C-alpha cells in the first residue's frame, strides 16, 4: 500500500492504495464515485472515461499511483457546469441514452469534443466518439445532441485557443519521484504462495484424441552420426531430452518414473511458466517412444498438454540414425482464448526445430550439454517471428498497443 494524494472533484483526498489499483477502482470502490462505469477494463469501451488534468482519459487502464497529484473530475462533478448542463438538455431532447451505462463516459467525451473541436460536423463527431461504445442507442441521438450543442455554442462563443497542456501522459506529471520502491505486499496471496506451492498438476491419462480434434502434429526428421543403439539409449535419458527443449527444465525425478518439469516461455510482456509432469513410454521392438507432458501456468490459468513421439531408423548401414519426431499439443485457458489460435502450431514448430537441433547436436557430441541453445528460457527471437505472429498479435492486440 502507498499513500496517494489527488484532487478529486475539487477536493483534496489522500488514500492508501495498492500499486495495482486503477483510477477507476480508486474512484468507485474507495470514494464511492460510482458514476464512472467499467464496461470492459480493456481500454476499449470508454464507459470509464474521466477528466484528468482537464482532458479525457480511460480510468480503467490509468494507474492511480502514477496519477498522484493530478486533478481528477468525474461525472458527479458536472452538475453546475454550464456546458454540461447544455449537453444534458441536448442528450435528453435527442434521446441520447437508454440504459445509461455508457452515458457518463459519453458526456465527458462529448464535452471534450465541444470544447476542443469548434464546428465539428456529424462525421467528425462520430470519429471523435469512436472510442465510446453504446449498446442501446445506435449513436444517432448522441451525435445529434453533441452537434446541436456545437451549433448553439458557435453562435454564442468565439473559438478558444487550444489549452496549453503538458506533453507527457495526462495526470502523470505531478507525483514526486520516489527513491524507495513500493514493494509488493508480502502478505499478498499471489506472490507468497505461488512460489513454493507444490506442483498440483498430476499427469492425467492422455486423452483419447478424436480424429482431427488435436492441433495438427509438427513433424521433423534429422540424422545423427551415431549408431542406433547409442541414440536409443540417449532417448531413454529423459532429463537430457528435457534439457534440449527450449525453455524447459527438470525439477525432479519421481519414484514412479515420472518427471516434474517446468517450461518458461516469454513473449513480449507476457511470461508463462508451465509446471507439470512428464513421463516416457518406450517400445524397444519398434524403436519408438512417446514423451508425454502436461502442465499448468498458474498466472494465466492455462493448461498445456503435449506429446512427443519419436522413431529411430538405421541409416548408412548402422553408422548413423535417422530420428523422426512428431509433436502434438493442446493449449487451453486464457492464453488460448484469442482468435487465430492455429498460430500456436507454428510456435510449437519453432520449438520443435530448436529441440531437434539441440538434440542432434547433443547426440553428436556424445552427450555434452554446453551447446544446447537457450536452456533457461524460451525467448522469441527473430527466427520465430513468422511462427508466432498471429497468435501473439491477437494476444496482445490493439487495446494494448496504444
Amino acid at each position, binding site marked *: 500500500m502507498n499513500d496517494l494524494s489527488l484532487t478529486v472533484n475539487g477536493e483534496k483526498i489522500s488514500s492508501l492504495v495498492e500499486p495495482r489499483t486503477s483510477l477507476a477502482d480508486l474512484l468507485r470502490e474507495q470514494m464511492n464515485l460510482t*458514476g464512472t462505469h467499467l464496461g470492459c477494463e480493456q481500454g476499449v469501451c470508454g464507459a470509464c472515461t474521466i477528466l484528468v488534468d482537464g482532458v479525457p482519459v480511460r480510468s480503467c487502464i490509468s494507474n492511480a499511483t502514477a496519477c498522484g497529484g493530478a486533478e481528477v473530475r468525474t461525472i458527479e462533478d458536472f452538475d453546475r457546469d454550464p456546458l454540461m448542463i447544455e449537453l*444534458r438538455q441536448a442528450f435528453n*431532447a435527442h434521446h441520447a441514452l*437508454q440504459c445509461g451505462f455508457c452515458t457518463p463516459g459519453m458526456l465527458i467525451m462529448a464535452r471534450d469534443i465541444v470544447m476542443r473541436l469548434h464546428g465539428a460536423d456529424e462525421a467528425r463527431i462520430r470519429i471523435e466518439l469512436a472510442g465510446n461504445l453504446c449498446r442501446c442507442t445506435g449513436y444517432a441521438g448522441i451525435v445529434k445532441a453533441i452537434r446541436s450543442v456545437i451549433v448553439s455554442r458557435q453562435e454564442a462563443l468565439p473559438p478558444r485557443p487550444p489549452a496549453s497542456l503538458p506533453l507527457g501522459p495526462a495526470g502523470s506529471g505531478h507525483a514526486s519521484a520516489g527513491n524507495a520502491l513500493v514493494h509488493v505486499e508480502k502478505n499478498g496471496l499471489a506472490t507468497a504462495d505461488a512460489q513454493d506451492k507444490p506442483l498440483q498438476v498430476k499427469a492425467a491419462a492422455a486423452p483419447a484424441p478424436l480424429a482431427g480434434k488435436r492441433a495438427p502434429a509438427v513433424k521433423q526428421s534429422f540424422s545423427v552420426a551415431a549408431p542406433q543403439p547409442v541414440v536409443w539409449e540417449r532417448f531413454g535419458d529423459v532429463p537430457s531430452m528435457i534439457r534440449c527443449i527450449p525453455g524447459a527444465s527438470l525439477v525432479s525425478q519421481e519414484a514412479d518414473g515420472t518427471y516434474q518439469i517446468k517450461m518458461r516461455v516469454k513473449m513480449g510482456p507476457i511470461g508463462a511458466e508451465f509446471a507439470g509432469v512428464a513421463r516416457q513410454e518406450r517400445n524397444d521392438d519398434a524403436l519408438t517412444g512417446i514423451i508425454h507432458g502436461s502442465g499448468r501456468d498458474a498466472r494465466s490459468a492455462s493448461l498445456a498438454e503435449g506429446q512427443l513421439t519419436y522413431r529411430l531408423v538405421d541409416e548408412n548401414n548402422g553408422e548413423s540414425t535417422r530420428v523422426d519426431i512428431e509433436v502434438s499439443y493442446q493449449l487451453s*485457458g486464457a492464453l488460448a482464448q484469442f482468435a487465430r489460435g492455429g498460430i500456436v502450431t507454428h510456435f510449437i514448430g519453432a520449438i520443435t526445430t530448436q529441440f531437434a537441433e539441440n538434440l542432434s547436436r547433443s547426440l553428436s557430441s556424445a552427450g555434452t550439454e554446453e551447446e544446447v541453445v537457450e536452456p533457461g528460457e524460451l525467448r522469441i527471437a527473430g527466427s520465430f517471428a513468422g511462427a508466432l505472429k498471429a497468435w501473439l498479435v*491477437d494476444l496482445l492486440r490493439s487495446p494494448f498497443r496504444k
Partner: protein
Amino acid sequence: MFVEERLDGQAQVKGQGIGARLPRKEDDRFMRGRGLYVGDMKMPGLADVAFVRSPLAHARILSVNIPPSLEGRVFTARDLEGVKPIRAVSGLPGFKPSSQPPLAEGKVRFTGEPIAMCVGPTRAEAEDMAALVSTDLEPLPVLADFSTAEQSEELRVHEEWPDNIYLETKVNKGDRFVLDGAAIVVEREIGLSRQCMVPLEGKGTIAWWDTRLDQLVVYTSTQLPHMMRTGLAECLGLEERQVHVVAPDVGGGFGFKCILQPEEVCVAWLALTKKRPFRWVEDRREHLVAAANTREHHYRIKAFADADGRLLGLEADVAVDVGAYSVWPFSACLESAQIASILPGPYEMPFYACRTRSVATNKPPFTPYRGVARTGVCFALELMIDAIAREAGLEPAEVRLRNLVRPEQMPFTNITGKLFDSGDYPESVRQAVDAIDLPAFRERQKDGDGDGRLLGVGFATYCEQAAHGTTVYAAWGIPMVPGFEQATARVTPDGGLELRIGVHSHGQGMETSMAQVAHEILGVEIDKINVVHGDTAVTPYSTGTWGSRSMVMAGGAVSRACEIIAKRAIAIGAHLLQTTPDQVVLEEGEVRSRTGSIRFQQIAEAWYKTPEVLPADVAHEGLEVTAGYKPKVDSGTFSYATHAAIVAVDPEFGSVEILDYVVVEDGGTLVNPLIVDGQIIGGVAQGIGTALYEESPYSEDGQPLASTFVDYIIPGPCEVPDIRILHMETPSPFTAHGIKGIGEGGAIAPPAAIANAINDALRPLRAEVATTPVTPHRLLAAIAAAAEKQLGKP
C-alpha cells in the same frame, strides 16, 4: 417543451399522453452519474467473489486443489450441499432436460464453466485466490460444433442421454404436390455465427440476508426479478416469501439478463449460508468467454416458386447449437420451436415443411437475444426471397410484393396457424422502395460512385409477433408461461400518482411511457407520476421484460388500473360537484360538470385527508388499484417492417459501408415515438453488429477465441449510419390503445437487408454470402470462390 420534428414529418401529438414525443423522465440521474447499478452497491462487510473457471471444454474433474491457506474462502460443488441444479424443462414431447450445477460437479461441459468460487475483501484479492486454485482435469474429447455432436456415436455432453439432441421437431403443412413442376427451385446453406449479447454492463449480483424480515435479499442485474425469485427459491430450497429480488438500474439486457445464471445462485447461496453480503460482477472477459451466447442457427433450406416468383413452398432443415445446458426459464428449445413456427414469415405459401434440432455441444448455453429466432429466420428466408428474385429476373422488392400477406386478408391465419392481427405489409415495401428511390439507385449502381466500390441495395421484410400470450408460450413448452400482466396505480394524497409494474425498464424508457398511458386516462401531469419497477417486494408479479411485451402487457395493465381509478375519481368528483357520475367527465386532470370542475388533487385530498366529506357508498374501494390485463386475443401482436439498405462493397478489402438505411415500421399505436425511434435505431445498430462484426468463434477443442473487445467487435459510432425511419401506424384490434410490441424489431432485419445488399453488389462477380457476420475475410473468400468457379467453367 419539445420542438424537434419527427423524422417522417408527421404531425406531432400534443400534450403528454399516448403519442406524445416526450423526452424521458429517467434520463437525469444517468446523466449525473447517479444511476445505481449492482456493481455500484457497497455494504459493510461486503466480500467480492471471483470464479475459478474451467480451462477445458469437456473434462472430468479429478480434483480441485485449494491451498490450505485459503480454506474457508474457496467453495466448490461439494460445499453447495442441498443446492439444486438449474433445470429448465421444456414441456414439448421428447425433450431431454439437462441439469446445470451452479458449480461444476463431476465434469465440466464448456470452457469457462464455474468450478469454484473465491471470496475476498476486494475483487483483486478474490482473483489472487482464484489464481492459486488449480484443478486436475481429465480431458474428454470435445463436441465443439453441432454436426460433430449430432453425429457422435458415443460421446455425450450429458452421459445419460442416448444422443446429443435436446429435441427434434417436425412440421409439415400443405400438400407437397404443389411443388411439382416448380419453375424455380433454390437451395442454400445459410448460417448465423455464435455471438454474445454484450450489454455494456455485465451481469452482476449482490446478496445478503435481512435478519429483520428473515429474507434473502438479492440485487441482481436482471430483466425479470419475479422470475429470478422463483428460480433462486427453487435452487436454494427456500420458499418464495423468503426471497426478495431487486433489479436496480440495469445497464442493458437484450435477452442476456433473462436467465438464471449459476453465478447468481452461488452468490445467493453464500449470503444464505454466511449471512453476510457478497457481490459478483461479471467482467468483460467473463461475458465474452463464459456467458450465454446466442444466434447460432444453421439452415439447409429449399424454396420453390413459380416462374413469376410466387412462393409455392419451403423446406428447411435447421440446427440450433444450444450449447451445454438448457437455460432457465427459456429452455434450450424456445429458439427452435420459434423457428419452426415462424419460418414462413409474412408470406403466403401453400406448402411448408421444417425439421429442427436443438443440439447440445461443449459450448456455453444459448439464450435468446433481441429478436429471438426471428433474426435468424429473417436472414434465412429473406436471402431465399432474393435468390428467387435473381432466378426469376425480378426486382427483389417485387417478389416480396407478390408474396406478402395482403391487407384485405387481415386478420390472417398463416400456414403455421399464426394469426396476423392487422396491417398493410406490401405498403411497407412500397414505402421503402420510394424512400430509397430504387429506380434512381439502379441508375447510380450501373456507373458506381467512381471509387471502385460495388453498390448494392437490399430489402428485408419481417413480422414481429410480440407480447405473445398464454396460448403461444404454452405451445412452445417453456417453463415460464405468461398469464395476466398486472399493474398497481396508487393516487397519492397530494394528487400525484404512483405506478407499480412487475416488468423492468433497463433502457426502454418505461418510467416515461407508462406514465404517458396513465396521463392519457387520468390527466395527471407526467412530472407527478412515479413509475416503480424491478422490486418483488413492491411490484405485482410479472414474468418480466422480454418478447417486446412490456408496453403491450404492462401498458395495458396500467391502462386498466387507471381506468378503474378514473371511475372512482369521477364518482368522488361528481359527489363533490353535487351531481351524478353520468353528468361529469374526467379530462385534463379535472372532473368537469357543466357548472364546475374539481381538480384531481382535490379528489385525492377528499379521499385521503377529508374522508368525512364522502359518503360511504362513494368509491369506497379507494384510489389504489391493482389490475390484471390480457389482450382480447392473446396470440400476440404483429408489428412488421421493411428495412432497405444501400451498401458499398470494397472488393479490395472486403469492407462494407452502409450508405443509406431506411426502416418502414408499423408498430401499431406508438405511445412515445421518440422512444420507439430509439428502440428501432438501437436495434438496427445491434443488427448491424450481427450482420458485419460480431462473432464468438470457438476452436475445435472448444476454446473461445474472442475474449476481449478487440477480438469481439461491436459497432461504434462510425459503423452505424444514420437510420431513416418511416412509421405506419395500424393499431392492433386486440390490445389496449392498439399498442403493438416493437422493442426487438430493429435487430431482426439488418443481417438480411445488409447481406441482400451485399449480394446485390456482388452480382457482377457472381459471388454470394450466406453467413453472418460478413467479415472482410468471408467476403473476399466469396469473391475468390466465385472467380475460381467461373474459371472452372469457361
